[in-house]
C-alpha cells in the first residue's frame, strides 16, 4: 500500500519477521519463573517448620533430633549430588548430539534418584511404624510434609526422566525435546538445592538443637 | 491525653459524620455506639481515631475537590487551557510524594503511641487511672459454642452471658475458648480481642459510671454465632459486693463436669444468664489443657442440617439484650 506521507518511508514503522522469538530462551525463562514459585512453596514449608519445631508443637512427642537419621541424610546428599552430576554429564552429550550418551546420563540420574527416594521412604516408614507418624503431633505433621513434598518433587522428576528417555529415542532432538531436557536439568538441580537446604536446616541445625 | 481537647475534636467531627446517617434513616445517634465511648480505653481509642481522621482529611478533602473540579473545569466544551504534551513536573512529583509522606509519618507516630495506650495486655492509659490504685478485678472468660462463661476466680463465682463489674475498678480479663476462635467485644468499652482455644489472651478496661452495655462475639464460630451476646453491667462497688454474695449462695456449682455440659453447642437466644457458685479454682486451666489435648465439642447434626431446620435456632425468639 502506497503512503501519501513522504516521511513515512523514512520512518521505521513495521518490522517484518520480527516476531520469531527464540522458543528455547522463552521456555527456559518461563521455567525459571516456575522455579521461583516452587522456591516460595518450599519457603512457606520451611517457615511452617520453623514455627512448629517447638516443644509445644511436639505435644509430648519427639522433636527433630529424635526423628532424623543424620548419616542417612549425608548419604542422601551425596547421592543426589551424584545424580545431578550424572544428568549434567548427559547434557554434555546433548551438545554432541549423542542420543545414547544423553540416555545413559539420564538413566544414571534416575537410578540414583530412586536410591535417594528409597532411603527417604524407608526412614519415614520406620519412623511411622514406631508410632511417630505424621498424625502424632503438629511437629511430626510438618516434618513428614516437608520431606514428602521434596520426595514428591523427586518422584515427579523421575517420571519426567522416564518420559525423556523415551522421547530422546522416539522423537530425537527436536526443539521441544531439547527445551525439555534443559528444563529438566534445571528442575533436578533445583531439587538437589532444596535437599541441601533440608539437610542443612533439618538435619544439621535441627539435629544440633 | 487531655479530655477537653478530645471533646472539642469530637464536636467538630461527630455532626459531620452523623449528618448523612440522620438524613438517611432518622436513626437516633444513640444507636451509633462508637460515638459514645465509655471509660478511658474506649475514650483513648476515639481520641486517636479523631486526630487520625482529621489529619487524613487534610489530604483527602483537597484531592476529592480536585477530582470533582478538574473533570468539570477541563471538559472539552469549556475550552480551558490545553497542554497536550505536558506530562512531567518535578515540583509536582516531589509534592505528590512529599506531602503524603509527611502526613503518613505523623500518622505512624500517632498510631504507635496509640497502640501502647490501649494495648489490651496492659493499656498504658490505665496505668494512672483512678481505679489503678486498687487491685484489679480478675475475670476469666471462656467462649464456648455459643455462650460466654465468665469466671471470677477471686470471688469463687461464675456466670453465663452476664458480665458484672464494679465501677471505678480496673477489670482484667483473661480469655480462652473451647473449640473455635471467637472475638470478645464490648463496643463502647473494651478493645476487641480474640478468644482462642488452647491459647490465652487478655483485655482490660475500667468504667467509672454505672451503666449497661452489650457485648458480642465478632469472629464467626458456627450456627449460633449471631446470638452470642452478653450483657455487661457496671454497678457501684457495694452493689457488686452484694451481688457476689448472692451468687456465692447459689447452689449451682460450676465444676469441670458441669462445664462440659454447658460447653455443648447451645444457642442461647436472648442471652439468658445463669449463675454458679464456687467454680473449680482451675477451670480456666483445665479448659486450656483439654483444648491442647485435642478436646473439641462437635456440633450436633441438627445444627448443620443442609435444609431448613428449626432446631438449629433456640426455640424462643431471642430478646435484644439492651
Amino acid at each position, binding site marked *: 500500500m502506497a503512503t501519501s506521507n513522504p516521511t513515512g518511508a523514512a520512518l521505521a514503522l513495521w518490522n517484518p519477521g520480527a516476531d520469531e522469538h527464540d522458543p528455547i530462551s522463552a521456555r527456559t525463562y518461563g521455567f525459571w519463573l516456575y522455579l521461583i514459585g516452587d522456591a516460595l512453596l518450599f519457603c512457606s514449608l520451611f517457615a511452617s517448620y520453623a514455627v512448629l519445631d517447638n516443644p509445644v508443637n511436639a505435644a509430648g512427642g519427639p522433636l527433630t533430633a529424635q526423628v532424623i537419621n543424620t548419616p542417612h541424610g549425608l548419604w542422601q546428599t551425596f547421592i543426589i549430588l551424584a545424580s545431578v552430576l550424572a544428568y549434567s554429564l548427559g547434557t554434555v552429550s546433548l551438545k554432541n548430539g549423542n542420543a545414547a550418551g544423553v540416555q545413559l546420563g539420564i538413566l544414571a540420574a534416575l537410578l540414583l534418584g530412586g536410591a535417594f527416594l528409597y532411603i527417604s521412604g524407608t526412614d519415614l516408614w520406620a519412623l511411622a511404624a514406631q508410632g511417630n507418624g505424621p498424625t502424632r503431633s503438629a511437629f511430626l505433621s510438618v516434618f513428614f510434609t516437608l520431606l514428602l513434598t521434596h520426595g514428591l518433587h523427586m518422584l515427579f522428576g523421575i517420571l519426567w526422566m522416564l518420559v525423556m528417555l523415551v522421547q530422546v529415542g522416539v522423537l530425537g532432538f527436536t526443539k521441544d525435546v531439547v527445551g525439555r531436557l534443559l528444563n529438566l536439568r534445571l528442575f533436578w538441580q533445583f531439587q538437589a538445592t532444596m535437599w541441601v537446604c533440608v539437610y542443612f536446616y533439618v538435619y544439621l541445625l535441627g539435629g544440633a538443637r | 491525653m487531655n479530655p477537653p481537647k478530645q471533646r472539642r475534636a469530637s464536636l467538630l467531627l461527630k455532626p459531620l459524620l452523623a449528618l448523612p446517617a440522620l438524613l438517611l434513616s432518622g436513626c437516633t445517634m444513640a*444507636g451509633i455506639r462508637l460515638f459514645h465511648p465509655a471509660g478511658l480505653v474506649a475514650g483513648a*481509642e476515639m481520641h486517636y481515631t479523631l486526630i487520625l481522621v482529621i489529619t487524613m482529611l487534610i489530604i483527602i478533602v483537597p484531592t476529592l475537590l480536585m*477530582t470533582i473540579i478538574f473533570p468539570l473545569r477541563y471538559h472539552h466544551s469549556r475550552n480551558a487551557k490545553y497542554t497536550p504534551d505536558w506530562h512531567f513536573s518535578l515540583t509536582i512529583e516531589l509534592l505528590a510524594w512529599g506531602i503524603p509522606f509527611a502526613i503518613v509519618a505523623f500518622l505512624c507516630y500517632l498510631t504507635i503511641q496509640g497502640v501502647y495506650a490501649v494495648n489490651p495486655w496492659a493499656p498504658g492509659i490505665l496505668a494512672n487511672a483512678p481505679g489503678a490504685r486498687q487491685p484489679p478485678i480478675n475475670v476469666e472468660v471462656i467462649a464456648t459454642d455459643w455462650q460466654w462463661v465468665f469466671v471470677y476466680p477471686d470471688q469463687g463465682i461464675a456466670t453465663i452471658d452476664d458480665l458484672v463489674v464494679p465501677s471505678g475498678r480496673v477489670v482484667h480479663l483473661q480469655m480462652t475458648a473451647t473449640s473455635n*476462635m471467637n472475638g470478645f467485644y464490648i463496643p463502647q468499652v473494651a478493645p476487641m480481642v480474640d478468644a482462642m482455644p488452647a*491459647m490465652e489472651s487478655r483485655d482490660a478496661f475500667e468504667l467509672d459510671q454505672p451503666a449497661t452495655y452489650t457485648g458480642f462475639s465478632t469472629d464467626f464460630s458456627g450456627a449460633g454465632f449471631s446470638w452470642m451476646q452478653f450483657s455487661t453491667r457496671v454497678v457501684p462497688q457495694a452493689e457488686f459486693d452484694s451481688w457476689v454474695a448472692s451468687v456465692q449462695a447459689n447452689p449451682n456449682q460450676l465444676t469441670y463436669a458441669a462445664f462440659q455440659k454447658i460447653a455443648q453447642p447451645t444457642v442461647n437466644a436472648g442471652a439468658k444468664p445463669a449463675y454458679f457458685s464456687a467454680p473449680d479454682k482451675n477451670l480456666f486451666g483445665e479448659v486450656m489443657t483439654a483444648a491442647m489435648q485435642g478436646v473439641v465439642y462437635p456440633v450436633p447434626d441438627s445444627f448443620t442440617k443442609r435444609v431448613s431446620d428449626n432446631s438449629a*435456632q433456640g426455640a424462643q425468639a431471642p430478646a435484644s*439484650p439492651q
Partner: protein
Amino acid sequence: MQVAVDGPWSPLLGRLSLAAIPYDNPILVSTFAVVALLGIVIIGAALYFGKLGYIWREWLTTVDHKKIGVMYIILGLVMLFRGFMDGAMMRTQQLLADGPNSPGYLGAQHGYLPPYHFDQIYTAHGTLMLFFAATPLVAGLGNLIVPLQIGARDMAFPYLNATSLWLTVSGAALCMISLFVGEFSNATWVGLMPFSEMPTNPGVGVDYWMWAFQLSSIGTTFNAINMIATIVKMRAPGMRWFRMPVYCWSSLTTNIIGLSIFPVVTVALTMLGIDRYFGTHFFTAGYGGNFMLYVNLFWIWGHPEVYFLMLPAFGLFSEIVPTFSNKALFGYPTMVAASFSIGGIGWVVWAHHFFTMGMGPELNGYFSAATMLVGIPTGVKAFNWLFTMYRGRITYATPMLWALIGLVLLLIGGLTGMMLSASVFDYTVHNSLFVVAHFHCMVLVIGAALFAGVTYWWPKVFGFKLDERNGQMYFWTFVLASLLVFVPLFYLGFAGVTRRLDYIYNPALKPLLWVSEGGIGMYFVSLFYFGKMLYVSLRDQIPAQADAWGTGRTLEWLTHTPVPFYNFAVTPQINARDELAWRKAKGVEGVQPTHYVPIHLPSNTAVPVIIGALATVFGFAMTWRIWWLSIASLLAIIIVVIIRSFDKNEGYVLSAEDIAKMENQVALASIIAEQPKRPALAQVEAH
C-alpha cells in the same frame, strides 16, 4: 491413614448418596431449575444453529490469547452475577431477621434462611467474587490487551494460557456443583481455623471450597508465569522498558505479586487438606497444632492478593484517563515506581488483618505503620491521574465516567483503609460492617476499572462500541445502588454491628437496613440497563474505527478493528512511549505495511479443556472421598500431558496471500469468524 468420616461411606461412591441432593430446599431447587433451563437453552440454541462444532473448534480448544481473554471475562461476568445474587440474599436475610420479633419464613426462625444455609451463602459470595469474578476479569483483560499493547503475536505460552483458563473454570464449576450436590463451606472465604478442621466441620462443604480455591489458584499461578514471560520476552522491536504502556507495567507488577504469593496459599490449603484427609495436626487446636500459622500464611497471600487485583485496576485508569483527557499520562516514571512500591509494601503488612489476635504493641505498631506507608504511592497515583486531567480536553465517555467514580471510591476506600490500619481504631471495628464497607469500596474501585476496561476495549475486540446511552444509564444506576448499599454499612459498623450475622439483635437499625436493601433493588435496575446495553449494541453493531475512541495513544489502537486473530499483519517497530500518539504527531498513523511475510501460529488443542474437565472430576472425587475416581482422574491428567508431549505439531503458517486477503477484508480475520483448517507443520530434529 484415612480419617474416619461422619455418616456412610462406600468404596464406589465415597460419601456421595442421594441424600446429598437438596431436593427439599425450595431455594436451591428453583435455582437448579433456572440454571438447568439456561444450560438447555444455550446448548439447544447451539445445536439448532449448528454452532456446536464451531464452539468446540474455535473457542473451547483455542489457544488465542484474545479468545481466552474473552472467555475469562464471560466466566467473570457470570460468576459476578451469581455472587451478586448471593449478596442480595444476604442483605434480604439481614433485613428480615432484624430483631427478636422478626418473622421467619421457609422454616427459618428469623428471616428465610436458617443459619447453616446463610453461612454457606456468604462463604460462596466471598469466594466467588474474589476468585471467580474479579480474578478472571482481571486475568481476562490482561490476556486480551497486554500482548496487543506490546505488539506480540500471542502470549509466551499459549497452551499454558488455555490450561490456566480451564483450571479456573474447573474451580468455578466445583462451586456451581456444590449448589446442587451436597453443600458449600460455611467457614467464610478466608477459611476460619480451627473451624474448618474435620472435628468442627465434618461435612463436604470445606472440601468443595478448598478444591475450588486450590484449582483456581494453580490456574492463576500459571497465568502469572505466562504474563511475566510475555512481557519480558515478547515485546515488539523498539519497545524498551520505559516505552511500555503503564497498563503493562501494572500487569507485570501484579503478576510478580501473583507468582510470589499463590504458592503460599497453595501450601496453606494443602496443609488444611492433609489435616482433613489424613488427620495431621497443622491447624487444629490440640496436638500442638497452630491455627495462627494458617492465619498468617493465609494473609501473607491474602493482603498481596488484594493488590494483585487492585494494580491492574490502577493500570486501567492510567490508560483510560489519558485517552479521554486527550493528553499524555502525567508522571509516567513515578507511576511505575508507585506500582512497584505498592507491590513491595503489600508483602510486609499482612498482619493488619488480625491486630486482635494478640500480637504485642510492638508488632501491632509495626504492622500499622507499614500498612499506612501504602497510602503514599496510592496518593501519588491519584495525583498523577488528576494532573493528567489538568489542562486536558476531557470527554465523558462511559469508560471515563467509570474511571472518575473509581477515583472517588478509591479516596473513600483509602481513607477508611488508613483508619483501619491504625490498630487503635481497628480494635473497635475489626470484623464489623465497617470493614465490610471498606473493602467493598475498594472492590468497587476494581469493579469500576473492570467495567471501564471492558467498555473501553470492547470495540477493539468485537468491532463495534457498546451503546453509550444505556451504558451511561447502567453507570448511574450502578453507582447509586452502590452508595445505597454501602454507605449504611459504614454507619452500621459504627453502631457496633459485626459481620457475618444471620440475625441482627437490634430492631432500631431497621431503617439503615432498608436503605441498603433499596440499593439491592437499584442493582437490579442497573442489571436491566446492562442487559439493554448489550442488546442494543449487538443489535445495531455500528462499526468502529481502528482507533475507536479517536484519542487512543497506545499500540493496540494501531491494528484493525475488530482485531485480527494474528494481531498485527506485520510486527510494528516501536519508536516512542505512546506509539500511536507518536505516529499521529508524525501523520503516519494510517501507513500500512507494504508487503507481508508468512506468520507462524500455534494450532488449537483440546488438551487444556480436557485437563480442566479432569481437574473438575478430580476435585469432585476428592470432595466426596471417592478414592478410585480421584486416582483415576489424576492419572488421566498425567497421561494426557505425556501423550501431548509426544505430539510433533509445530503449529501452522499463515501465508502472505492469506494475510493480504484478510487485511483487505478484516471481518474474515475477526476472532468471531470461523477459520478454515490449515495444515499443521511437523517438528523436525534440529540436528
